[in-house]
């Protein structure tokens, strides 16, 4: 790890002030991604601003019937919170499917949103070509191993995926990210928070470098237990998703009032598929309907040499997740 300065802050205003003064400095939350990347010098912040003492750990019901998740609430506390288990079981399932109990005790909700790709070329500076790490250097994954890379929304500059499970559920639940910068607070819809790589793959999100995430706000959810997070991975604990699906259906006696569908492991951001949601709305629950929705969801897929399997895998995962969410399993 390269040497750095370290400062603890205990309120949002001080955190934002500190980060605005130090170019390249970073907030330290659970550290499970940042410290890891600092060890192999992918990240080299001159200064760490430790935000763990800011009181942003709460998980509270909001007046509209939604829930506000503090940015510094731990992933384990979030997943196990009675309000989340009861009203947003999709989110609990997604979080608990990721990492390990110890990591979830450390990882924060804000940090989870900002975790970086697990593209092996990005994570290992021994590979000189990575546009995300060193803009303009090229992309090692295009010609190299890319069996776990994106099949949707990629560019010829970067084909990395966003690794989070939690964020896939947040996309389906239409969460809002509340952030604070030097000029005050603003709200970013989860769908606008993560970016596609385009020609600037070094920028993962629309959060500004001097902005602090303060909370993730969940609107009231009509889906409850008619939801399912399905994660397909190489081993049952401790592995990132090859493909994952967050499915939520608002059902009324066999008919679908509305549905939400988001995919993980397939794109540079949690991939919400509104076309498939539209295909489900107003229809009667059935497996053949789910098959149509799955085809629609993957219609724009552009797999590469090693990851064509993901297209069929994602379709089957969608059908399976919808079948479980709809209670037809």
């Amino acid at each position, binding site marked *: *790890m*390269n*040497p*750095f*300065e*370290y*400062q*603890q802050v205990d309120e949002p205003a001080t955190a934002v002030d500190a980060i605005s003064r130090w170019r390249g400095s970073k907030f*330290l939350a*659970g*550290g*499970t991604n940042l*410290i*890891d990347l600092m*060890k192999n010098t992918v990240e080299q912040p*001159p200064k*760490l601003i*430790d935000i*763990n003492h800011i009181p942003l750990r709460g998980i509270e019901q909001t007046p509209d019937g939604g829930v506000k998740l503090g940015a510094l609430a731990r992933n384990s506390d979030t997943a196990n919170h009675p309000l989340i288990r009861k009203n947003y079981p999709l989110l609990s399932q997604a979080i608990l499917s990721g*990492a*390990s*109990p*110890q*990591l979830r*005790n*450390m990882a924060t909700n804000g940090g989870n949103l900002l975790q970086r790709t697990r593209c092996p070329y990005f994570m290992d500076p021994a590979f000189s070509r990575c546009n995300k790490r060193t803009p303009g250097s090229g992309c090692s994954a295009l010609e190299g191993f890319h069996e776990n890379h994106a099949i949707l929304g990629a560019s010829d500059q970067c084909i990395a995926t966003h690794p989070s499970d939690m964020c896939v559920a947040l996309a389906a639940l239409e969460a809002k990210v509340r952030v604070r910068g030097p000029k005050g607070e603003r709200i970013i819809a989860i769908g606008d928070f993560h970016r596609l790589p385009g020609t600037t793959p070094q920028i993962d999100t629309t959060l500004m470098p001097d902005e602090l995430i303060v909370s993730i706000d969940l609107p009231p959810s009509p889906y409850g237990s008619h939801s399912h997070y399905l994660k397909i991975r190489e081993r049952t*604990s*401790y592995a990132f998703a090859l493909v994952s699906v967050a499915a939520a259906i608002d059902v009324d006696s066999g008919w679908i009032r509305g549905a939400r569908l988001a995919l993980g492991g397939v794109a540079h951001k949690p991939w919400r598929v509104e076309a498939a949601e539209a295909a489900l709305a107003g229809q009667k629950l059935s497996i053949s309907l789910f098959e149509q929705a799955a085809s629609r969801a993957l219609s724009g897929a552009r797999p590469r040499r090693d990851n064509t399997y993901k297209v069929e895998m994602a379709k089957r995962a969608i059908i399976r997740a919808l079948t479980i969410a709809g209670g037809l399993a």
Partner: protein
Amino acid sequence: MTSKKSQKSLVELRINGETIEVAFAPHKTLLEVLREDLALTGTKHGCELGECGTCAVLVDGLPVLSCLVLGLEAEGREVTTIEGMATAAGLHPLQDAFADLGAAQCGYCSPAFLLVAKELLEVNPSPNRDEIREALSGNLCRCTGYIKIYEAVELAAARMRGEAVEPATESIYGFEV
């Protein structure tokens, strides 16, 4: 608190119930501070990436990976390492059960398994096998195949609940047939 680059800071840590003052550079992980500055080598170095769990310690009672925590972050928190698991009264029942059932072979993973299991039994004194498996799922063991570890946690839990469920003498490690 604030610290300058490469300059050591003098920090007060609470380790195994004792308050210790120690000076270290800001970029040292808690794992490095424990092993290198405090000579508490019971906590093991593994992958350094959060993947193996062998560096787990309890911070404010919760299992975390000391390879991904800065030493500075531990200031003001209660850290428990394997060295703090036995008391004046003797070994912790989990340590006894691990020894009795041979739940350790090379033993490299044991400190972390013991601490993680300790926290589990504090929260849930009667975990079922799935709950034990889940709680320990972040810890890798390359020797035992895990079954003996699960059995040892079950034995310790039963003993701690005061149940008379001693294993057959032949399965106690070191028993001579």
